[in-house]
Structures are given as C-alpha cells and as structure tokens.
C-alpha cells in the first residue's frame, strides 16, 4: 500500500509532462512571426497518382529539408521553401523505385532535387493560399495550393507549427514524356501531399 502511494504521483507527473510538451491543436493567431526549420522526422511528403485508370496509388519521398516563415498576423510575410531528394522515392518495391528514379519518370540523377519556393502567400479564411515556383524534372513552373495550418504551440521549449499542403501537377507539363507517350499507365496528374512539422530556428 505504501509502495502504491509512493508510485501514485508518477503517472500524474508523466501525464503533466506530456500535456506540457504537446502543442495546442488550434491555430494560434496571436502568435508572432517565426522562422522554422522543417523537422523531417515528423513530416511527410507523399504523392498520389492514378494507376491504369483503376486505382489511386500512394508513395513517398523520404529525404527532404526546408524552411518556413509563418506570420499569423501578416500572412503575406509568410514563406516556404522545400527541397526534396528525388532519389529518395519509396513505393514499397525496390524494383519499381528504380524504374521511377530512371529517366522514364524522375530522372533522379539528372534532376536530383524537386524544389518548391513560395512567391506569394495569402490568407484564405482559416487557411493560407500559397503560390510559387515548383522545379520538377528540371522544369520550373508556377503552381499554387491551399495550406492548412494544422497547429502551433510549444514542444520541449521550442516553438512548433504544423502545415499541410496539396499540390496537383501534370507530369507532362514538367517534361515527363513517358506518361504522355504511354497513356493509361500512370497519372498523368500527381498530387503532392506535403505535411510538415516545423521547429523554430
């Protein structure tokens, strides 16, 4: 009994510590502008495309880095830059990954980076609307996407913020001719789903 009473505060302390380190789940619109670095360990860059006109297929990129500036009071001052390592594509099959890295699709050796750099950010209700240059397969084109501010807060003493954006691109627009020359195999549209947890610098 004495031991039980001694140990009783432990779960309470653990619970307190967890709640203290967990960020709030609502956007903090009163927060000041902050510069963040993407925490790749807690972020995901996924893609979704149609396979053979039958099903949606999902894959991911495991290597990426970047910076985000978020100013809740003046969204126009916000910015994002993300650099994805094209050769880090992962679709749960080494043989297929090799094909996707080849010059049929990503040409990952020739164009090792997929880069998005924002040019304009606007508030759109609770969300943000970002416009910028996407460089993919060596071709740079302007794209735009809605961005959800998933949450902001403090975690282990550092300011953190979460964002999720979805870009839809046509592979043919970026010079991936294999898809256009072999209609019905993949895509041609690809949705890039970028879910980022960012930590203040």
């Amino acid at each position: 009994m004495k031991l039980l009473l001694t140990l009783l505060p432990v779960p309470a302390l653990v619970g307190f510590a967890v709640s203290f380190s967990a960020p709030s789940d609502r956007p903090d619109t009163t927060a000041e502008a902050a510069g963040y670095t993407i925490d790749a360990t807690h972020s995901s860059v996924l893609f979704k495309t149609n396979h053979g006109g039958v099903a949606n297929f999902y894959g991911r990129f495991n290597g990426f880095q970047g910076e985000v500036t978020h100013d809740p009071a003046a969204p126009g001052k916000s910015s994002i830059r993300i650099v994805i390592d094209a050769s880090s594509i992962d679709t749960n099959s080494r043989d297929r990954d090799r094909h996707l890295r080849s010059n049929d699709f990503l040409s990952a050796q020739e164009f090792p980076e997929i880069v998005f750099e924002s040019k304009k950010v606007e508030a759109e209700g609770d969300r943000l609307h970002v416009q910028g240059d996407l460089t993919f397969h060596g071709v740079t084109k302007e794209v735009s996407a809605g961005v959800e501010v998933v949450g902001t807060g403090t975690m282990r003493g550092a300011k953190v913020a979460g964002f999720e954006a979805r870009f839809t691109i046509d592979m043919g627009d970026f010079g991936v001719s294999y898809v256009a020359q072999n209609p019905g195999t993949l895509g041609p549209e690809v949705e890039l789903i970028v879910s980022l947890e960012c930590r203040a610098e």
Partner: protein
Amino acid sequence: MDPLTQALKGILPPLALAVPILAAAWRPFGRRPIEDSAVTRGAAPAAIGLGYLAGHVALTGWPPLAWDVELKHGLFYLCLLATLLGLLEARGARPARVGQLILSVLVPVYLLDFVRAHRWTTTESVLWSTGLALAILAGAASAEALARRREGVSIPLAWTVVGTGAATALHLSGSTSLGQLMGAWTSVLGACVVLAVLRPRFRLAPGALTILVLLAGGLLGGLFASELRPISAILLFLAVFGPWLGELPRLRDRSGPVGLLTRLLPVLLLSGAAVWIEVVSRPADPYADAR
C-alpha cells in the same frame, strides 16, 4: 499500354522510314549488280539516322530545342549530327576522322553535363571526359574499319546482337525509355541484315559512326542517369570490338557459317553476359514475402 504495343511503337516508325531508303538504293530483288555510288554509300547512314530519329519522336515526342536537354533527348541531336557527317562522307567529303573526333568529344561532354554539375569535381570531369572520349573514339574507329572491311551479313548482324543486348540490359536496369530507344536503331539494323542476305555486297559504312554514337550515348545514359551496372556497360561496349576475332590471320579468309560464327561469337558472349548480369542483379523485393 501493353509491352507489344510499346515495342511496335519503337520498331515500326524506324522501319517505315528506313526500309524504303535501303530498298531504293540497293534494290534488294533486282537482278543487276549494284555499283558503288554516293547513293548506295549514303543509304545506311540515312536509313539508320532517319529511322532512329523517327523512333525517337514516336517514343518520347519531339525533343525541346535547347542545349541543356534531358540526356535521352541529347541522343536525338547527336544522331542528327552523326547522320549528317555520315552523309557527307558518303558523298566523298571524307570527314571520317574529323567526324569521329568531334562526336567522340561531344558525346560525353554534351550528354554528361548534369554529372559535371552535380557530382564531379573539375579534375574528375577532365579525367572522365577525356577517358570516355578516347574510348568512344577507339570504338568509332573500330566500327568504321570493320564496316568498311567486311561486306555482307556479319557486321550488321553483330551490331543487331549488340543493340538487342543493350536494349534488354537497359530495360532490365530500370530505364524502359532508353531500352526502347536502343531498340529503335536495332530494328533498322535488322532490316540491314535482311538486305545483306539479299545483297551480299551491302556495307554498313559510313553508317557505323551513327550506331556507335547511339550505343555509347545509351550506355552512358544507363550508367550515369539510370542504374545500369558498370560491368554490363563495359561488356556491351567491348562487344563492339568482338568481330575483330574473325579478322585474325588464320580466321580472316574463312567464309560461310564458320566465318560468320568467328565474328559473332565474341559479340554474343559479351552481350549475353551483360544481359545475364542485369537479370541476376535485379533488386530483390524486400516486401515479397509479406504479400
């Protein structure tokens, strides 16, 4: 798109252009002997070059008109240049050595621009580019010499074997489009083999330079822009020199099946080994057991 349709797309357009050119110059079913002329000499480079260009457009679309194009589109422009040099040579302009030199330097410099930008230091760039240019120059000189020396089936057939090996190895290494592009020029060589059976005086020269440029470009693409094993690329390139076995003093006068076999055997062994290496080294699927 099913594999047969994909293959036909890379084979039919080159043949549609190449066969009429070869037939018009060499009249395969005619009875009179064909005399050596600029037309007969120009038929092979025109058929191979234009056939490949047609296949390239059918498979990948028109390449962008720019210097810094993707590697596979660079093959289009190099083929165009090699074809022009081959046609000039057929007209008697004799730029063979100059053409070989220009293209040997251009192939690695033009196609591997991205490797210099992302991977190589300046020293590495100089060493790699020089080494590759020398290897391509040796290959081009050898290909031209063999094509001049030997008429008939053996040289077009040897090239068809190398092309088929390169197309298969590149496809197995993960690059379908480079494999298909190699298949495009190989299909024209298949037509050259048939022509050489009907017209035994047929010679590939001066079209050999175009083939060598396309093979070297495809192998460099597989090696640096895709995931072709270096040993496979080396074996396929060495296969280009294979027919010299049949030119050794004791073998060079052999004709018929024995002569053909001595020229083809090394090519078959080297190309076959490259394909075999690609087959056995395909990555194992780590999730296969989970399915």
